């Protein structure tokens, strides 16, 4: 029937539908143009650099570029027995070039990552290679050290042929590729990164739990008190929220030190002896206490904004229908606050899992988190590709949590202050 109706035309004779679509498209472009400057700015300065991190973390061109001829010659080698003369000759050629550029040290460091024992034999090869005669490099190289005649070491070199590697990610989980090309874990006592990941999760989890247990009662009080009292008490939540993170960390350093006020208080009430003051800072306790206080406002605010919308008459109705106050709370009030709990917990957990400053200052060696390790590799060891790999592992964890947050609460529900 619609096809039979006469097409509606605008005053300039264009069909209404076409004209409307045109206007829609114009509006779309207008809206997009407003967002474009910020979007472009962020893509160039922020999104691409994160992609750059991804590239750096898997990039392994260094050895590939140092031994181009060797890897070309190795293409046909099956890795079962010692390679043929042509591989040795190519390796010799590459190596002489590296010695000329004084880059053989870098090669030995890189190969040593793959297999221990390359450092000394490369040094030896450099010394002996000066007196090498032309031809039959296989015999000559093998006579430098018995490891050069060991097929294991040649396999280790071949493993560095690809331009990309997952080695940094494996290292972040304390794993590596062994001689047979299998992924295995490092020895028990050298698993430092797993300890750090677990500790980060543990601290983030318990800080979230502590924040929740402390925030719930005060958010409830703030939401139920008359305005004039609750506004005053709200300052106790908002002032720490607006105060510099470093100032708050500094105050905890003063409070928790061995001669500090908390310890003075414990001695004063006779809880601990004066000569036996406990160490409350530079360990996990320090991280827990300071992080809980610093992140508490992020839990209180979403809880408060949800509780504010719950009508008090619901609790009264619950009680009047025969529930005790506890039953009324548990069956009526608590379920209504779950969106707030979800928002607060995920917010605090995301913030805690990436915390850096506070653990670095009050955490000591046993209270530091994965972020501290990333900063250490960025600033001290300069192993930027490893720092990138660990950063991206942390980021993927956060994105999973964020995705959950979006599913459960929705990003649009983020509220500030």
């Amino acid at each position, binding site marked *: 029937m619609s096809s039979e109706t006469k097409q509606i035309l605008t005053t300039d004779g264009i069909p209404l539908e076409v004209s409307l679509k045109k206007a829609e498209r114009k509006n779309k472009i207008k809206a997009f143009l407003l967002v474009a400057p910020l979007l472009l700015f962020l893509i160039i300065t922020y999104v691409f650099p994160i992609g*750059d991190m991804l590239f750096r973390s898997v990039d392994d061109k260094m050895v590939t570029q140092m031994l181009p001829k060797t890897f070309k010659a190795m293409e046909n080698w099956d890795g079962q027995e010692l390679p043929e003369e042509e591989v040795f000759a190519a390796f010799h050629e590459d190596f002489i070039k590296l010695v000329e550029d004084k880059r053989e040290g870098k090669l030995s460091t890189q190969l040593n990552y793959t297999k221990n024992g390359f450092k000394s034999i490369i040094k030896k090869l450099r010394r002996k290679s000066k007196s090498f005669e032309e031809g039959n490099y296989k015999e000559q190289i093998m006579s430098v050290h018995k490891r050069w005649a060991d097929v294991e070491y040649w396999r280790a070199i071949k493993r560095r042929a690809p331009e990309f590697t997952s080695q940094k990610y494996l290292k972040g989980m304390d794993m590596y590729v062994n001689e047979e090309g299998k992924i295995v874990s490092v020895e028990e006592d050298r698993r430092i990164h797993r300890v750090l990941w677990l500790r980060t999760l543990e601290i983030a989890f318990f800080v979230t739990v502590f924040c929740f247990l402390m925030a719930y*009662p005060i958010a409830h009080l703030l939401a139920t008190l008359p305005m004039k009292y609750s506004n005053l008490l709200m300052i106790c939540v908002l002032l720490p929220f607006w105060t510099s993170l*470093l100032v708050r960390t500094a105050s905890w*350093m003063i409070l928790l030190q061995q001669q500090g006020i908390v310890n003075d208080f414990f001695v004063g009430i006779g809880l601990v002896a004066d000569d036996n003051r406990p160490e409350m800072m530079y360990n996990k306790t320090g991280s827990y206490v300071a992080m809980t206080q610093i992140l508490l406002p992020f839990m209180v605010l979403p809880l408060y904004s949800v509780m504010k919308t719950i009508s008090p008459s619901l609790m009264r109705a619950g009680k009047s229908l025969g529930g005790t106050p506890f039953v009324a709370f548990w069956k009526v009030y608590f379920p209504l606050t779950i969106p707030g709990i979800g928002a607060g917990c995920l917010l605090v957990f995301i913030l805690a899992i990436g915390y850096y400053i506070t653990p670095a200052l009050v955490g000591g060696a046993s209270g530091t988190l994965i972020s501290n390790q990333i*900063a250490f590799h960025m600033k001290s060891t300069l192993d930027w590709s490893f720092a990138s790999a660990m*950063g991206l592992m942390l980021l993927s964890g956060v994105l999973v949590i964020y995705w959950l947050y979006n599913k459960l609460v929705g990003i649009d529900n983020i509220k500030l202050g």
Partner: protein
Amino acid sequence: MALPKYTEPHYRIWHYIYLTICGAVFFFLIAPLFVIFPLSFNAEEFLSFSDGMKRLDPDAFSLRWYKDMIYGTKNPWGLAAKNSFIIAIFATIGSVILGTVAALGLSSRHMPYKGLIMAVLISPMIVPLIISGVAIFFFMAKAGLAATHTGIVLAHIILGTPFVVITVTATLSGFDHSVTRAAASLGSDPVNTFMKITLPLILPGVISGGLFAFVTSFDEVVVVLFLAGLENTTIPIQMWTGLREQLSPTILAVATCLIILSTLILVTAELLRRRSERLRGINR
């Protein structure tokens, strides 16, 4: 909160336990800030209360550390404060302009891929700072902007815009678009409409977003640690160095000043929030 008269005794006890817990939590939240205040007036070089201070002896208090903060030789605080303010002001201006314009686009109902773009725009707020720091450092190093004020300002614009986008979008959600249509029908061009009609109405949101951006920049240390050279030192960097090496009471004097600053910001933000709620109330 008074209990009704008919409350049974054991609920009464529960209620007082609940109030005590709340009191303890509020104390835990706010008390650490007040420790800094008296200690910054300590006449001695210790970070604990001296016997004189406990007796409230006037001689135990002094302005020594405040003088040291301002006049002390080789004192980095002057340069740091100057840098911090310059960086924070420019970063705030940049964040507010970019963020407000983007929020206007995002609030339009014609905006395509709204969810995806919103996610990108607020991502600097969700990604842990340490990762942002690494990524931004890689960019600034390539662009030759590491250890420059420009680099740090750009970095802080990245970190500050999400707050502006969120607060301004929230303000615009209660915005009555018929007023801009009315302005257009009376012959006003879009720029004029924005300046005369839209901006005054969303100003509380813009300013409170700007305050967030300012505080973010002023308090930011992780990214600056990667980017700053000796010339670009800021107050947070100096505090970080001081706290790592040696806790001197001068830091407490600085911290006291920062607490006063944050109190001022809190009061401003709170007044703006109420004004904004009032304005939105009129629209309803």
